[in-house]
């Protein structure tokens, strides 16, 4: 049985890793050999595509744009989302359940269905082709995610801890700052990581609301490498490898946190 599951694991890992391996090898293969007889073992490896990516194409710009947009989205949605989630989890006010349902409802619209209205709104307020013009639309999916994740997280924190702080003389804000937030670090980290990954990989909004190369994010820039007469596969694959680096780093560093944060609200401690 153990042998079987072990073997199955390697099959799954292989299925996942082969395309990644293929991408890596192809991104290091010279252009003229890319369409030769495919071989699993690479022949001559060159950095031509990476050099072209950063010298000819100035790939730093989309990377910077993606970092700014994904970073701002994460920062805003975790800050605002945690305040909102705390209120929904802990305080009594009329229309609480309805608010929570509305938050969820927002994330239920297919993205494509809100592209046109959002475009019109952004054009009207002059935010097309700006960072806020991407960050604000990203909040439409980042906030519901953050709020739902953190409401679950805050609810399973023992209320006694906050009451102990009240008895100790701490006001509500002081209690949130000194007690609730520090012990919510796993939940906040999970929300931040998931938001960052979604924003980093987002394509549709970025394609629709960024008008020129100076505001393209990484996914959009890669998609637009394709020229009228040729598809620079080497550079596309090199860019894909570069775009995966932050994601891979975050996942490797934070995978434990993500798992514990995602399951924290599920089971009562």
């Amino acid at each position: 049985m153990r042998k079987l599951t072990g073997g199955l694991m390697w099959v799954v890992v292989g299925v996942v890793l082969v395309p990644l391996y293929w991408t890596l090898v192809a991104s290091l293969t010279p252009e003229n050999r890319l369409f030769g007889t495919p071989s699993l073992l690479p022949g001559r490896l060159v950095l031509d595509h990476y050099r072209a990516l950063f010298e000819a194409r100035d790939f730093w710009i989309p990377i910077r744009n993606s970092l700014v947009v994904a970073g701002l989205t994460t920062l805003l949605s975790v800050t605002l989302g945690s305040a909102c989630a705390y209120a929904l989890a802990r305080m009594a006010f009329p229309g609480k359940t309805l608010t929570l349902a509305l938050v969820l409802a927002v994330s239920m619209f297919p993205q494509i269905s809100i592209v046109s209205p959002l475009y019109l709104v952004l054009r009207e307020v002059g935010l097309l082709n700006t960072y806020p013009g991407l960050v604000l639309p990203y909040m439409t999916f980042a906030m519901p995610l953050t709020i739902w994740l953190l409401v679950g997280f805050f609810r399973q924190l023992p209320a006694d801890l906050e009451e102990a702080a009240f008895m100790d003389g701490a006001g509500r804000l002081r209690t949130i700052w000194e007690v609730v937030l520090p012990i919510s670090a796993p939940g906040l980290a999970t929300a931040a990581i998931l938001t960052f990954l979604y924003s980093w990989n987002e394509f549709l909004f970025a394609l629709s609301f960024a008008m020129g190369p100076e505001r393209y994010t990484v996914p959009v820039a890669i998609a637009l490498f394709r020229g009228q007469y040729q598809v620079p596969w080497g550079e596309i694959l090199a860019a894909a490898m570069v775009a995966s680096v932050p994601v891979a780093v975050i996942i490797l560093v934070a995978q434990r946190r993500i798992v514990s944060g995602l399951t924290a609200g599920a089971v009562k401690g």
Partner: protein
Amino acid sequence: MAGISLRQAGKRFPKGQVAVENLSLDIADGELLVLVGPSGSGKSTVLRLIAGLEAPSSGRIFIDGEDVTDLPPQQRDLAMVFQNYALYPHKNVRENLAFGLRMRGMAPTAIDERVSRVAAALGIDTLLDRRPAELSGGQRQRVALGRAIVREPRAFLLDEPLSNLDPLLRTGTRAELALLHRRLSATMVYVTHDQEEAMTLGTRIAVMNQGRLEQVGAPLELYERPATVFVARFVGAPAMNLWRDDEGGQPVTFGVRPHDISVVAPGSGEMDGVVEVVEPLGPQTVVHLAVPGRDELLRVMVSGTQRVNAGDCVGLRWPNDRVHVFDANGGRRA
């Protein structure tokens, strides 16, 4: 230190459930009052009303004569020890103790001095740099107590502080709490469901049942003269023997404590019974007997040296002045 008063306090939860009803209670300065009752009797709610963690639906609450009904917990200057201790898990013991002082704007040097003094008194001075997760249950309990003591509050509220300790540690800590109360001569309100804890600790005991006070009095007063059938059954272990009867056409309940019944030769007592179960406790033995005309077994406490065996037929005798009589509503008849 301060006295605490509740005046016709009531708590009704939004779903209509009544936790506390029309409760008036005066807790004297320096007194250790134990609120005791089964789970759901409203005793924890009373504590939370005093703390300010719940707002009463009716009535007023006074501390030292000052109406604090509308004051938030932060401004009542009370300290609370929670059942699960509620230590701040991300702060070490020192920071846990200092937090309340820091919130009140005390100078850092004064805080250090006070924390060290209390930690030394409680024997936790070697644990100051540890986090709660690195402490044993007993140590956590001490830190929770320390966090309350260090504040020098107007009164202490303790919510079943011993229920998470193992039995051996519990009796030891119970004695320490009694000592602490005497040394600080502090006002304490202590919630428990354990009648033995209540009897041994309380200056006075308030027995609660279904959101109402059944009786308030000194421990032995409750034991000797329970005001209601509920108190009679709840206070004292093993519980009082109770049986319904008729007296001149009026339904009444008679009660006799197991300690007040003696085992004598068959036929020479008030009634005869057959021994069903014998529970030797060492100094004393609890004997359960089947008595004709009663469904429930009768409990009798005899000396540990007295030999009683299951299956024996024995006589039972008790002095007439040890019989408690309650009327149809469960109230004591003088």
